[in-house]
């Protein structure tokens, strides 16, 4: 056994809906593993099963070798969980919240308060430590939620969309903290809707869609499949775009037209862009707008499934059908 977290054929239905339809993945110890997918893809269900708050219908999951169904108490002793909705007590102070978690995770009583003080310092909450949580800002609550998960020094940490709703600065701080934890030996399972986040943090990413893992690889490999840069050239008229595409198709694989816009997917963004603009200039074509962006979760989905990322609240669309498809990818 090598994985810190091992998931095999995990299935969970809620009535008619299969939240998880047999997913498998394995998380190497001391690494960050990202579960990437839209709302309702099944990410949170997977975390809840691993955290022993939900029982699977089929399949198995082990955390540090402990089966989540057979030995839930052993699993609970090695995990920390921080949720999408900060699960902390608004009427307790920051310090009291951490103390409560320390008591309930069976820590040695004498170690609880020093550990709480250490975490409050580390998460820059020491000034607010003795104020009730309802006076905290959203970002502060989120930090306290994560601090609470860390009180008993769990070797395995589940973070369910930890940065949703955080401002950029808090998000970057949190990313740094996650990296520190991994350096110290923690295994982190992270769910996110943002490719960028998974890319920045995770050693490996599983892309989840409608309860299935549709890709499981290193971020660089996933991105290489996609092409790392998407350039959008907007023309005044469709005619210009048509001419541009036929011109570029000769030299570039990933060019496609959508109305008056030409979209170019490429691994070598800046270099290709120079060439393209030069060619267009030679043909006396000049785009009215130019936008360059890194691939998003939406792009990953388009390339992997042929449909856009969609939450399961809306009924599932029949696969592909008349939807736009990106040629340069997959």
């Amino acid at each position, binding site marked *: 056994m*090598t994985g*810190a977290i091992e998931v095999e054929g995990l299935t969970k239905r809620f009535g008619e809906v299969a939240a998880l339809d047999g997913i498998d993945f394995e998380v190497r*110890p*001391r690494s960050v593993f990202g579960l990437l997918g839209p709302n309702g893809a099944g990410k949170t269900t997977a975390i*809840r099963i691993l*955290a*022993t*708050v939900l029982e699977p219908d089929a399949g198995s999951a082990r955390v*540090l*070798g402990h089966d989540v169904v057979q030995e839930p*108490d052993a699993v*609970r*002793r*090695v*995990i920390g*969980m921080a*949720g999408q*909705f*900060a*699960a*902390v*007590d*608004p*009427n*307790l102070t920051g310090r*009291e919240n951490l103390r*409560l*978690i320390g*008591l*309930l*995770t*069976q*820590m*040695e009583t004498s*170690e609880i308060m020093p*550990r709480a003080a250490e975490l409050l310092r580390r998460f820059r909450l020491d000034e607010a430590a003795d104020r*009730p949580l309802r006076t905290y800002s959203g970002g502060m609550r989120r930090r306290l939620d994560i601090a*609470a998960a860390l009180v*008993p*020094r*769990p*070797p*395995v940490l589940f973070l369910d969309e930890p940065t949703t709703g955080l401002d950029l600065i808090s998000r970057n701080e949190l990313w740094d903290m996650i990296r520190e934890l991994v350096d*110290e*030996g*923690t*295994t982190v399972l992270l769910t996110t809707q943002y490719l960028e986040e998974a890319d920045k943090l995770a050693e490996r990413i599983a892309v989840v869609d409608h309860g299935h893992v549709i890709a499981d690889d290193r971020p660089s490999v996933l991105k290489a499949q996609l092409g790392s840069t998407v350039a959008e050239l907007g023309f005044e008229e469709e005619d210009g775009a048509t001419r541009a595409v036929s011109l570029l198709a000769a030299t570039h694989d990933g060019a496609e037209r959508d109305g008056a816009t030409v979209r170019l997917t490429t691994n070598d963004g800046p270099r290709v862009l120079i060439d393209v603009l030069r060619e267009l200039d030679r043909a006396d074509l000049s785009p009215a707008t130019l936008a360059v962006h890194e691939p998003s979760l939406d792009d990953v989905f388009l390339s992997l499934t042929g449909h856009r990322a969609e939450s399961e609240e809306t009924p599932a669309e029949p696969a592909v059908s008349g939807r736009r498809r990106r040629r340069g990818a997959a």
Partner: protein
Amino acid sequence: MSATVAAGAARERPALVRAVRDAKAVTWRYLIHYIRVPQLLVFSTIQPVIFVLMFRYVFGGAIHPPGDIPYVEFLMPGIFTQTVVFGAIATAIGLATDVKSGLLERFRSLPMARSAVLAGRTMADLTRNVFVVLLMVAVGFAVGFRVHTGFWGLLAGLLLLLFFGYALSWIFATVGLYVGDPETAQAAAFPLIAPLVFASSLFVPVEQMPSWLQPWAEHQPVSVTASAVRDLMLGGTDTAYHVAQSLAWCIGILLVFVPLAVRRYRRAV
């Protein structure tokens, strides 16, 4: 295990030690709420005080208790009982709030005793009841209530009230876990409570009610407990009968609702 990490500080404790320790931690948590949000306590005491004043001075003259006792002495044991009944709603609201906020979910991912949340919540409500009931006794004395059976009668009556309140907490714990939303819990509690509090012997002697209502009003748990408390505090000929009836209700309620609440807790999200 290949993941060599600084070992967590968790300690193995015997199940019973853990259960008591965890229940204490959860009780502490809920009691802090009463310090942080004193309105919770203030409003749950203002309401019975208003009832006392209203029934004592406004409606009291029109109500004639059986026997020769002044209405205020008939009324106060009813008020004490009403206080613990209304107090039990807080159990439902508190637990529903925790379900909704996701806190129970976090608790369920911790290596804590499964009994701790329910034990802690009901213990906190019991502690609150001690405070509120003692306060109402003081209010009672201020408006002319007198105990006829001495200190031990008063104490026995108060203990029965607290036991009854504790049993009710488990009914409302079950309700709170099932509805999982504080507003709904509040709304769901009232229809449960209304027939118990108003179709009862709390404020009005049962003999003055329509005959079809009398069997219910006489034997339902709230009336029976109020009668037992009256007997214990004022003296009566049926004391043992009423106390036994009330205890039977309390035990029956616990036998049904403790397992229901625990089962629901195991599944609550």
